[in-house]
């Protein structure tokens, strides 16, 4: 028994020693990374890449500001996607993380069904790209039942994707893009709704009426 205790004591000492060393280890590792960083710098193509991506980053908030009315083609392709999306929205309006989780699972299934529908080949790559991103947000919403604020964050990002999906593959109903300038440290956040009445899913009961209709998405 005594031996056992001394073994644990030695382990504890070793562990505490490693915490002390840590700062040194990290400084060393930063220096290492620095060197590797410089090496990579010499690649010409990485600079080209950088310019390209900087441009993309600069336009990062354009989706929030776009307030022109939008007309999309009438299509039933997205029907179940829109149904599930609006269910998530309503659950978040009602501060109900559990229902948001359920609806997010429906949404994931709905994405799988989209691939089985008749999407023109030329639109397929864009649809795939949107769904790949949207699916990740839906997964996060379904996995975070107990953390509604995290669900709301992913819902906001999901909304951008759903708007994109509707622009490419159409909608079966009129939708409204609603914008709340308060969200995310006043960076703003948007969502889609079947009604122009403001009920805020990003804050729920905390700020139910914050928001304004930014644009109407009509079907052809």
């Amino acid at each position, binding site marked *: 028994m005594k031996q056992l205790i001394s073994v644990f004591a030695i382990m504890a000492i070793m562990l505490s020693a*490693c915490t002390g060393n840590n700062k040194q280890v990290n400084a060393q590792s930063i220096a290492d990374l620095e060197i590797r960083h410089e090496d990579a710098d010499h690649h010409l193509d*990485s600079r080209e890449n950088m310019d390209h991506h900087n441009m993309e*980053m600069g336009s990062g908030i354009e989706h929030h500001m776009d307030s022109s009315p939008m007309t999309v083609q009438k299509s039933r392709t997205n029907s179940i996607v829109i149904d599930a999306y609006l269910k998530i929205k309503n659950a978040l309006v009602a501060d109900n993380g559990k229902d948001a989780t359920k609806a997010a699972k429906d949404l994931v299934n709905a994405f799988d069904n989209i691939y089985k529908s008749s999407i023109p080949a030329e639109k397929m790559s864009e649809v795939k790209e949107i769904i790949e991103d949207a699916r990740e947000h839906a997964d996060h919403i379904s996995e975070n039942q107990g953390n509604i604020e995290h669900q709301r964050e*992913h819902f906001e990002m999901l909304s*951008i994707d759903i708007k994109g999906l509707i622009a490419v593959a159409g909608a079966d109903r009129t939708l409204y893009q609603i914008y709340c300038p308060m969200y995310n440290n006043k960076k703003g956040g948007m969502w889609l709704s079947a009604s122009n009445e403001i009920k805020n899913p990003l804050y729920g009961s905390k700020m139910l009426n914050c928001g304004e209709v930014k644009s109407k998405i009509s079907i052809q």
Partner: protein
Amino acid sequence: MRWFKVIVLIVIVALLGIQFIPVKRNMSTIIPSTDFIIIYKPSERVSDILKTSCYNCHSNHTDYPWYSYVQPVGLYLEGHISEGKENLNLSEFGNYSGRRQKSKLTAMIYQIKDNKMPLPAYTFIHRNAKLSGEDKKQLQNFLNR
């Protein structure tokens, strides 16, 4: 007491045994052109914050502490690293679609704002990885750019 000894012995043998489990190491030495810092060229300060507080679990290169060679600690760390990379791999950031890059940037802003990242288990050991108020401000300003 005899049973106690037997159990201790079993535990010791098991601990020794798992030392032989091979663990895949996340130690690429190449910085690809798709690397986040290469693409966005943040200030030195922001680069340092990213490398200290994010890159160990969100890139293809981890600077392993010595105790990562001891099991089951190493297996536990490897689980975190693979999950971290699955959600965000800064080494391969350029391979994400434009849409996904924007999403990842926004998600990074949220995670930092909400104090969700770096994980408490990580900053407990890596004290210098903890983001100060000023670190957070610098990161947010850069990511919001």
